């Protein structure tokens, strides 16, 4: 009787749990950054990311990348300047390697990111994404601060004042099971 009860508990938990499994491909995404000058903010976004991922044995790994030249703001002068600032000719992609648990029952996905940007790989542990299952995969959205100095980025200036060292990055992505 005791065993049956435990088995039922385990079974009911596994029915409720939303666990990612199998292979995934990035269906649609929006990645944006926000540069903060002394008295103004300049957002830019890219919708040209590509990504793949795999979930098994309670863990997931994803790889997402976006061409640096795909980030577009309201100002093409700023966008072309950005290519030089991030050494886009040498490092044309910004890539994010994501490791997380596969259980998204809580509606959250806590991930360790390894961001390869401007030729420097840097770890951003414990980034929290909201995660929801969709008909053909799952949707995640999250935010973290890209640390320009640690990626050895020479920060642009306006009136001699450099932009903020922390650049908030917002990621929204729809993943499709393949």
């Amino acid at each position, binding site marked *: 009787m005791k065993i049956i009860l435990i088995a039922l508990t385990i079974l009911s938990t596994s029915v409720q749990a939303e666990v990612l499994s199998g292979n995934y491909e990035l269906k649609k995404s929006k990645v944006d950054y926000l540069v903060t000058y002394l008295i*103004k903010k300049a957002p830019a976004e890219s919708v040209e990311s*590509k990504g793949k991922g795999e979930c098994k044995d309670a863990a997931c*790994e994803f790889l997402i990348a976006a061409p640096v030249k795909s980030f577009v703001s309201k*100002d*093409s002068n700023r966008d*072309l300047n950005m290519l*030089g600032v991030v050494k886009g000719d040498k490092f044309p*992609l910004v890539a994010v390697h994501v490791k997380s648990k596969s259980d998204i029952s809580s509606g959250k996905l806590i991930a360790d990111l390894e961001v390869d940007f401007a030729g420097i790989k840097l770890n951003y542990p414990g980034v929290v994404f909201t995660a929801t299952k969709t008909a053909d995969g799952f949707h995640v959205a999250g935010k973290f601060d890209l640390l320009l100095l640690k990626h050895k980025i020479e920060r642009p200036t306006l*009136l001699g004042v450099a932009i903020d060292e922390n650049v908030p990055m917002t990621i929204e992505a729809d993943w499709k099971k393949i």
Partner: protein
Amino acid sequence: MFRKFMATVFLVSIYSTTAFAELSLNDLGFKKEDIKVDSKTVQMMEVRKNKLQIHQKLGLATMAAMTATLLLSDTAESEDGPYNTNNAHKYAGIATGLMYWTTAYFSLTAPKPDDMKDNGSTKIHKTLAWVHAPLMALVPVLGYLHDQNNKKGKASTGLVSAHGSLATVAYAAFMAAGLTMYFDF
């Protein structure tokens, strides 16, 4: 028996290593031409950035000089003032003109990649140049003619009499052009 089974499951889950196939950027399907950033463009942008930074700083200095010139204009008519303010306005105007065209030089000679389109703040900034640049060519000439008239005791008429008004329009357009680069509209 059940306890032994659960303990085994627990240990296996702890010690098992999850082996993932190596995820590689090559698998993502980017085409080289789609991601390539032309190094010539980057080099050109470096030159452009340096020139535009000088343009930015000189522009600010010109704003200050232009403000001073405008403030001195009220007393420009009085020849017999204790500080000879007429000349002060004239010299401030000359300095403003020199600074203005030097500022413009750094913008006009900054290289621009073919695929660069002016949009956003830059577009407003450049559109306003079509207002203040012709006026900054015209206003000093009108100022000179107005001064000549003053010296001859003649009242200025026509366009020459509009020296002050046109200078104010140039000032407003120039200040607005500067502000577009510092604020979002």
